[in-house]
Every structure is written in structure tokens, then in C-alpha cells.
């Protein structure tokens, strides 16, 4: 049996009368990259927000490394679990190093605001994300990809075992999407972090995930290795889309090729020509 870092026990989430996640039992393996996928509005971001305790569950509980999250203080959780929310905004004029320093917040007190350890960890976080050279530049002057790396550096400065990222590649071009996911992969490989990501791009998800979870109808539709999860049947059920699933020529992970009206026409045209 695998070791789990996070576990939800009949977790129910929602807003007012609307239930988004119903009695969900989910285990997230320790030291692995877990990627949550699902159609728009299936509740994957809601689930992540709830694990990050940005949203109170309607019922059920969440365990972090065997401890009930309700029993831990917010600071104690912040030392074990870092979160990068979907949309972040940095105030005008704040520099990269000032932002990354905020990651030390849960470790600092009124009197101890900038210890030798803080300085060392912030520098390490900036180095491993490649933003050290921009330390004194305002965050608002950076490109989308750089900015995202700075925010990841801030979560690293928190020095947590677990990192949650909510659609970290949205608004980034494909090169920067790969860059961010490679960074996550490195953090998992080198530092052994448990990483949970909500991601839209299924092919990238299949490439980077050890463990994939597909959500549908307020609960888990399928979970397991990318090969187990990404199937034509899952695509049909979860995304209501007809697909071919082939092997990614580079990573040998499953890759989905969706049918569409246009594709159908091309296939027909080619058949006609033959």
C-alpha cells in the first residue's frame, strides 16, 4: 500500500445549496506528483482550494500526513503545505526578493523577522527557480512565465513538504508551460516534494503525473497511473469528447487526439482522394 500525504474523508464541498464535491475519499501519495483533471466546473479547483483550506468543507475532513487539519493551527499547516492559487496579483512596486521573502511568514515572529536561516532559504528558493538575477526587479515588470516562477519561489521559501498548484500554466505559452512543469518535476525529483497540480492540458498532465485523478459528477471517475486514467472511455465520460489515445512519441505516456468537426472533414477528404 502506498504512503499517503493527504487524505480526504467523505469530503463534501459546495457553495450555498450547490454541492460541487460529494462525499469524496481521495488519497494523495507522498513524494509523488498528482495531477487533477476534469471538465470545466467539475470541482477540481474547488477541491484543491479546500485542501489548501481556502474553502471550508460542508462536511468531512482532510488529513495532512496523518493529522486532522482541523487540529492544526493555520501557521502549523502553512509550514507543511504551500499553495499557489490560480490568480495572483502582486502589488505595484514589490520586488522579486520582497515577494519571495513573504514565503517565510509562517516561520517568522514579530521579533525574528529576518534570520540567517530566512536569508539562506530565500536565496535558495530564488536560485532553484532561476529568478535570483531578478531579485531587485519589480514583479509587475516581469513576463508571465517569470512571474509564475517568482510565485513558485515564494511557496518554496515556505519550506513545506507539500506544494499545491492551481492551474499554474494558465496564460503561459507552451514553452513556459513546459518550463513550469519541468520545475515542478525537478522539485519532486530533487527535493522529494509531494506536488498536487490542477491542470487542463491532458497531454502534459499525462507526461508529468505519477498519479492522475479524473473528476466527474462530484466525485472521482478514475485514478491511477496516466496509462490507467487516460483512455478513450474516460475522455468520452469525463469530457464528452471522442478521442484517439496514442503513445506520446517522446515520453511514451498516453496522448489524446480529439475528433472534431473539422478533423472529420479532413479525414473524409483524404479518404475521397484515395
Amino acid at each position, binding site marked *: 500500500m502506498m504512503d499517503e500525504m493527504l487524505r480526504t474523508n467523505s469530503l463534501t464541498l459546495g457553495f450555498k445549496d450547490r454541492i460541487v464535491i460529494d462525499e469524496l475519499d481521495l488519497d494523495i501519495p507522498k513524494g509523488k506528483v498528482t495531477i487533477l483533471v476534469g471538465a470545466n466546473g467539475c470541482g477540481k479547483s474547488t477541491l484543491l482550494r479546500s485542501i489548501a483550506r481556502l474553502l471550508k468543507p460542508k462536511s468531512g475532513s482532510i488529513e495532512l500526513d496523518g493529522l486532522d487539519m482541523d487540529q492544526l493551527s493555520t501557521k502549523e*499547516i502553512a509550514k507543511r503545505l504551500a499553495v499557489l492559487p490560480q490568480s495572483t496579483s502582486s502589488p505595484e512596486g514589490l520586488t522579486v526578493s520582497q515577494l519571495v521573502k513573504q514565503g517565510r*511568514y509562517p516561520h517568522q515572529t514579530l521579533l*525574528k523577522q529576518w534570520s540567517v536561516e530566512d536569508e539562506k532559504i530565500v536565496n535558495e528558493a530564488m536560485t532553484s527557480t532561476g529568478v535570483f538575477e531578478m531579485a531587485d526587479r519589480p514583479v509587475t515588470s516581469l513576463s508571465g512565465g517569470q512571474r509564475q516562477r517568482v510565485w513558485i519561489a515564494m511557496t518554496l521559501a515556505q519550506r513545506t513538504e507539500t506544494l499545491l498548484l492551481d492551474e499554474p500554466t494558465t496564460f503561459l505559452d507552451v514553452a513556459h508551460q513546459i518550463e513550469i512543469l519541468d520545475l515542478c518535476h525537478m522539485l519532486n525529483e530533487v527535493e522529494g516534494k509531494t506536488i498536487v497540480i490542477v491542470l487542463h492540458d491532458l497531454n502534459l498532465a499525462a507526461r508529468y503525473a505519477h498519479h492522475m485523478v479524473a473528476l466527474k459528477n462530484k466525485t472521482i471517475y478514475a485514478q491511477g497511473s496516466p496509462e490507467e486514467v487516460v483512455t478513450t472511455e474516460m475522455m468520452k465520460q469525463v469530457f464528452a469528447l471522442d478521442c484517439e489515445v496514442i503513445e506520446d512519441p517522446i515520453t511514451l505516456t498516453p496522448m489524446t487526439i480529439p475528433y472534431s468537426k473539422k478533423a472529420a472533414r479532413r479525414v473524409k477528404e483524404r479518404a475521397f482522394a484515395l
Partner: protein
Amino acid sequence: MKKVFTLRPQSGAFSLQLPIVPIALTLCLFLMMVVLMIVGLSLGSTWVSPLAIMQYFIGIDVGANTFIIESLRLPRMLVALLAGAALGVSGLILQEMVRNPLASPDIIGITGGGAVAAVFFITTFSGILPMSLLPLAAMLGSAIVSVLIYALAWKQGISPLRLVLIGIGINAAMSALTTLMIIFSPINSSSQAYVWMTGSVYGSSWSAVQQMFPWIGCAMILALLCARAVHVQQLGEDVAKSLGARIQWQRLGMITVSVILAGVAVAFAGGISFVGLMAPHIARFVIGRSFALLVPTAAIIGGTMVFVADVIGRTAFLPLDVPVGVLVSGIGAPFFLYLLYRNRKG
């Protein structure tokens, strides 16, 4: 040159980062304020030389000037200074808390609550109760209205935007109520109420300084202690929460400090507007982002604005004594527009 000095003794008992340039700028502003205070104390219907002022401060007897400085000009200047400093910091905290540069105690109704209570006191109890109770009434008014705003803005926690909108609504209701009371009151108390509403430090005494100082002193220290909370909340609600900040408690704390400061200022200097909005902006122009330094800077700038306006008000229109609130808005507003204009070009 290193831009930041790190204070970190061997024992490891505490550690702080001190940005050098902004600290130097704050000290410069402080010196400028002291110089302006000396000049301001010299000016008036009777000229007292700056030398005599300095002699007075170091304890040399300056004869007849002692009365002018000690009884007439200094307490009035200190009340103006304290009120301005309090309003500046109150506005600073609100702006940082709601992450909106337009917030200030006179816009979200804190001052308005004080005004209603004060005008009610003036129009109803004038001649029945001693006027020395007016500050108490105004403070109570600010406090009650702030609690009301906070309670109405509560919806599974305080959302800053909701707080501002409800504050603006309450403020509108308060000003309607104030106007109504003035209309129904006899003419002499209505003119008194008007002067109070514009903001005036005419006839301020040492007892006012003594009453204001402990409140404002304590609230300033509390404001400095908000620095960590302010910086973490600037990153947005989600990030602040995930860093382990207890943002609802922090917000309650910030609002309380802001209300104490604005309430005390309103109680002793009336409804001076605009300082709470403007002083934090000017402070940010000078200092940048560090909240721990913005607190003293906003205090110095707010205080200087109000006492300079008051010096002008009591000297430029002799024998008239123009309420300080008129001059703060009259000079402050164009100056503020100028700053924005210059900033646009730069």
C-alpha cells in the same frame, strides 16, 4: 552601497531588516517638520523670532513671549499636528487593508459618525452640558458607527470591498442626518456646528493635547505592529491565508487602530477631510512600500499638512481665523492633483 542594513545580534534574540535610504528620508522629513514648526510658532499677529522659540524649547526665559508660545500657539499647533498625524495613519491603514487607494476615514463613514454625534451634541446639549464633553461624544459616535459598518459588512468574514461600499452608504446617511440636525437647530449653534464639521483647532488647550497623546501614541505603536499583517495581506486573500495569516483577526485589529486614530482626531479637531486620503499617498511617493516606515512618514506628512494649514489659516486672513479644514482641502486638493499630474509624466 548596500541598500538594506540587517540588524541581527549574535544572541539571535531578534532580527530586522532596515532599508537605509527610506529611513534617511523619514529623518529628513522629520527635520523639515521641526523647522516648519519653529517657523509656524514665530508667525502670528505678534512676531516671535525663531531664535526665541528655540530658546524657549531649551528652557531659556523669553519673557512675555512665553505666554504667546506656551498658551496660545504651541498647544494649538500640537493638536493640529496630532490630529493630522492620526488621520494620515488612519487613512494609510485603511488603504492598505482594503487594497484600494481611495479609502480614508472620511470616505467610509468613520468621521461621519463622529460628526453626527458632535452636531447632535452641539445642537441639543449646547448650554446644558459642558462643551468639554464634545470630544467624548464625537469619539463615541465614531466608535458606534464603525461597529455598525463592521457588523453590516460581515458576511462569513469581512470583505474589504463590501466594507468600503457599506461605509460609503453609511457616510451618506450620516451626512444627511447631520444636515437635517443643523437645519432644525437655532442659528448660533448651527454656525458652531458648521465650524466643527469643517475642522478647527481654534482655542485648543494643553488639556486637549494631554487627552489626545496617550490614545494616538498607543495607536501608532499598534499601527507599527500591523506591518507584518499588512505586507502579507498585500499578496491577496488566498495567498495570505495559505501563508498562515489569520486575516480576519488582522483586519479587525487594523480597523480598530484606524478607528481609534480617526476618532480621536475628529473628537479634538473636527471633521478635517482629505488628510486621511492624501497623506498616505504622499508618504508612498517618498518612501515606497515598507509599511513600518510609511507609518511615521504618513504621520509626519499628515501632521505637517494640518499644522501648516492652520498657521496659514490663523495668519493670512487676520483678523479672521479661518478653520483649518478649509485650508487643508483648499491647498491640499490642488497640490494632490499636481502630484498626480507630475507622476503621470514621470
